[in-house]
């Protein structure tokens, strides 16, 4: 059940699928009645409505849903605090491995300048990789490598 690994997974429930599609269609009607492909055309707007419908109707939870909720939390944990920690470690570690350049300051300045991009990239990657385990492994590896570099440097 790979799709249950997304942030919100209620759209897997067939009971709500049709209402979702209908809502999406209603968003994309031209005034003359012609259907227009746009954001909502991609079920985007409906994506969350499905979750809300599910919340409103309070249906009994299926085991797959409960597992999916855990995955969502795990993904949120990775995309939020863990990606931030990893970005901080990469930034700090960058002071050790970024070439300092002729002015001897690039290793101090570039990690700070690029930190927002770094965090954003890790955040988006953590949200988008369908294989949550792989996302944990890659972000974890980046964090651990830089953490080890920092530890060795500080111990010395």
């Amino acid at each position, binding site marked *: 059940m790979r799709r249950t690994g997304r942030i919100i997974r209620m759209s897997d429930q067939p009971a709500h699928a049709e209402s979702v599609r209908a809502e999406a269609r209603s968003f994309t009607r031209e005034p003359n009645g012609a259907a227009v492909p746009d954001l909502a055309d*991609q079920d985007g707007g409906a994506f*969350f409505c499905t979750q809300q419908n599910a919340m409103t109707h309070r249906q009994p939870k299926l085991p797959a849903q409960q597992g999916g909720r855990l995955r969502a939390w795990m993904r949120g944990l990775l995309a939020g605090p863990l990606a931030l920690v990893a970005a901080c470690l990469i930034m*700090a570690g960058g002071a050790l491995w970024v070439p300092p350049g002729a*002015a001897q*300051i690039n290793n101090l300045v570039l*990690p700070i300048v690029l930190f927002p991009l770094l965090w954003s990239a890790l955040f988006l990657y953590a949200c988008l990789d369908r294989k949550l385990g792989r996302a944990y492994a890659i972000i974890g590896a980046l964090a651990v490598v830089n953490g080890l570099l920092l530890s060795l440097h500080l111990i010395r």
Partner: protein
Amino acid sequence: MFKLPRHETKTLLAIHGWSGVLLGLLLYAVICTGVAAVFASELNDWASPLPHATVSADLPPGLDDAIRRLANEVDPQFHEEVAVYRGAGGRLNLLFHRHENGPDGRPTERGVEFELDPVSFAPLDRREGWLEEIEAQRASTGVADFLVNLHVRLHIPDPWGLFVTGVLGLAMMVAAVTGLVIHRHLLRDLFTMRLGRDAVLRRRDVHVVAGSWNLPFAFILAFTGSFFSFATSVGLPALAMVKFGGDQQALFETLSGAPRAEDPRPARLTNVDAILADARSRSNAEPNFLSITHYGRADSMATVYTELPADELVYSSYVYDGPTGTFIREAPPMGTRPSVGASLVGLMYPLHFGNFGGALSKAVWVGLGFTGAYVTLTGMLLWAKRREEQPAWRRMARFIHYVGYGLPLALVCAPYAFFILRDSDIPAATSQGVAFLTVAALTAVAAVTTRDMDRLRRRLLAATGIALLGLPVVRLATGGLGWMQALEHGIAAVPCVDAALMIVGVASLWVALGRRVRMALPTRVEGQIKSEPQAT
């Protein structure tokens, strides 16, 4: 534009929407205050002009005598560094200080600051203490400081405020990227805005079209803003820990160029006016900041910063030997020689502040900021509209209306307290903060009691318009300069800001009283959701 798989598109839209709706209100506050902060210097000149003609130079000739005279009045420990820069209305600020760790253990400055008349060099004010205490005593810059503090740190103490605004910048950056990727017809829809009966379609179009046009600058402003917030709150402490055992002063010294060898022997500083004239001729730009380290010692150095010269986006500084006035080097923003890192840091300033091309670039940046605020607000309203069948989201929609239209009103009302209480002992930040919160509370009452959200929007917009029109009146009534007097003294900021406030005020009233928008907002009628009747 991008053909992503359906699943990824869904996820990105989820990120786009939820990051916007969870952090959007705070982000909206940061953007709104940022729009006003672009003209911070002009606002200060408008709020606190000097009552006579002033000089055009930020650091006018005659400064040399003033520095020597005032240096004798302060404790020599504060000769460690003298910073000279322009204040409100052309006033001169001279801060004699030393670098220390503050009561919270973080590096800061402590010393004495003088505020001088730029023509007579007579002292207008004297402030002492830690830098934060000195800043709180600067009454003349109160109006802009209140806005800038809200923009930079939401009035939350450092480093947490900076951290929060940094995260908001990241959220905006993520929203910009995801917005770009999920919009499949970015170019085709650039001009399609349908303001019809379908409220969701209308809100989608106004959000998407504004967001599409604003995309490049939403990213740039978010990235640069996030950099400024995180650099001091996270980046510098972390790198100081790694490379200098936690000594941030050592990191600053490395970044600003290796300090000179210590030589505490007394030596008279050369003529500062001559240094400024030399920097002016080398840069073809007007000096606007002077730093003198180790004043009165043989190892003293003077560093002059200038406005950006024409065609330049990255600033330089000019370094001189203190005792002899010999030119040492032209320094990049960081380090002693050009580098990629220094250039990138230098670019951050003009890209974020828009202050590189005078009033034209500032006006464009205000427009971009306004568009950003509009995109944020319409995005939140769209998100709430799509979920309006749920009571919680209807309450959220009301709250978004409250913040979206109430915040500008509270911001406009804050300077009223500044003008009315400017001669009292109450700090400008306190009086404006109280006024801001009072108006916010009154607006909250209006938001709760006004059932129709379109009416609430109109009332708040009308109140904002009236408040904007009233500001010049209150400024004049509390002893402010008249237009003719200001023009005679060459103080263009007074009539220009007054006129801008009146134009925006009239525009707000025009929107508030204009054709009623067909909101089709739902109301609870006997337990059922029912759309409001279409207004005419």
